[in-house]
């Protein structure tokens, strides 16, 4: 596979897409961990939901 005289444009396009997709995946994963951590801390300090169920447990 040869990319010809405009290889730099093609490679840059794919790299930019890969970088942005990776940022989105990391953002979602980090946000999930952060919210779970905050909920665990709040529940550990004795704050519970009105339903009495754990906010971190997914049924």
């Amino acid at each position, binding site marked *: 596979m040869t990319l010809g005289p405009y290889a730099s444009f093609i490679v840059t396009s794919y790299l930019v897409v890969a970088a942005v997709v990776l940022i989105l995946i990391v953002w979602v994963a980090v946000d999930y961990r952060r919210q779970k951590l905050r909920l665990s801390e709040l529940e550990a300090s004795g*704050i519970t939901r009105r339903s009495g169920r754990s906010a971190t447990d997914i049924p």
Partner: protein
Amino acid sequence: MTLTDLANPSRFLALTARLLPWFAAATAILLLIGLYQSAMAPDDYQQGATVKIMFIHVPNAWLSMFVWSVMSVAALGTLVWRHPLADVAAKTAAPIGAAFTFLALVTGSLWGRPMWGTYWEWDARLTSVLILFLMYLGLIALWRAVEDPSRAARAAAVLTLVGAINLPIIKFSVDWWNTLHQPASVFRMGGSTLDRAFLVPLMVMAAAFSLLFITLHLAAMRNEILRRRVRSLQMAQARMTQAGRRSA
């Protein structure tokens, strides 16, 4: 399971936990197949190898408009049906839609330079997509500016529905005005003008990016539900602290 069943956030979280691994795996597999097919696709007789940029540019451009359409339906869900998860869906779709629109603009620009001789032209298609990107940023800013989620949801829903006017302008800009951008070549009256050698990898990549959106959106919605639980627990904590001070 109906939309009404999903109005219960706990039920939605349970469904998401079951679906997410499957969607993530399907996205990864389709992306790998699409990338392989894109790499193996032949050169175009006019564009040469730069046609490979199409396989990432077009799916991102389609998704930039599709995500706004999803947000518009969610906006109706907020304003008309008052579905509890409608504003969660709209809020979490905006950053993902902004990212797809950014990618459509950047990859289009990188494709335009070798093909048109310029990175940018203020023509109808490019300008209307830039406006779409700015509208995404405006919506994200609005969500961040208003602290109360229900108030922010109503304002964002109105803005989203007004912004939906831009979607047909983007779609038909290449027909209504003289633009550097080529007219539609896949979804058009009379069928696609693309050769099968390009059409197949393009459709696989479009399916892969669509699945990527669904996966990221479900995960972001799950995060937003948890964020709202954090907020309500923090408010309960503040109320308890206040009541404790009063009784002391």
